[in-house]
């Protein structure tokens, strides 16, 4: 990979802001547009940018495959886990009302948690898909 100084510096500068924006979208989704899915995509795009500039190998060092795969699975488990938790404490599946003493608080908590699950899985999957495409070695049969 050739190195372009400007690109490297600029992308390094941009990285924290993109990640910060992703977190903002994740947690501000209740009030403005946005939510787990969009945040996950933005989060992933930060790493895709990093991988484009510094190469997939370096980016892979920042986010190893094991962690990504763990993230993919954990997001789904978190979401489904919230549902099962509600079921165990006496509500229906995904009935957040029973998560806290006050139903509205429970709703808020439930929405927050499942959005987190969505964000986690989406970000991990998107980064994984990109790494897999970019890291794929052409091998004709």
């Amino acid at each position, binding site marked *: 990979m050739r190195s372009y100084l400007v690109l490297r510096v600029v992308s390094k500068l941009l990285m924290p802001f993109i990640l910060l924006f992703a977190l903002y979208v994740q947690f501000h989704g209740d009030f*403005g*547009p946005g939510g787990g*899915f969009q945040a996950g995509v933005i989060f992933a795009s930060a790493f895709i940018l990093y991988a484009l500039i510094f190469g997939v190998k370096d980016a892979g060092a920042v986010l190893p495959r094991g962690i990504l795969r763990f993230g993919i699975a954990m997001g789904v488990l978190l979401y489904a886990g919230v549902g099962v938790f509600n079921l165990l404490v006496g509500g229906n599946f995904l009935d957040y009302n029973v998560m806290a003493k006050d139903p509205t608080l429970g709703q808020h908590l439930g929405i927050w948690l499942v959005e987190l699950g969505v964000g986690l899985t*989406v970000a991990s999957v998107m980064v994984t898909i990109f790494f*897999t495409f970019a890291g794929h070695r*052409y091998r*004709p049969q």
Partner: protein
Amino acid sequence: MFLEYFNYWIVVFLMMAGFYIVIAHDNLIKKIVGLNIFQASVFVLYISFGKITGGTAPIIAEGFSVYSNPLPHVLILTAIVVGVATTALGLALVVRINEAYGTIEDDEIHKADEEED
């Protein structure tokens, strides 16, 4: 009459163009792009159903009383995600097909398969 439905009809046109790309083209990547267009147009159709003239985005705030219907938005958010998942999987298959056959044209692949039989 015409203006009232114009919005729906333009969407139908886009949809059919995407659909045509999918079924008429031999190139596998172009088929996927066509699928995307087909689906994106369906999304526009759904969102059109939810629009109220003079309404605003469904985020409750003071000073607004007419909001567009949030339900189609939610459905389409889900559908977009499903769409991108399909696209990713389709493209991964295209890469593998290209490796296995050395081409991404449908008719050439058919030819290769027939020779093998």
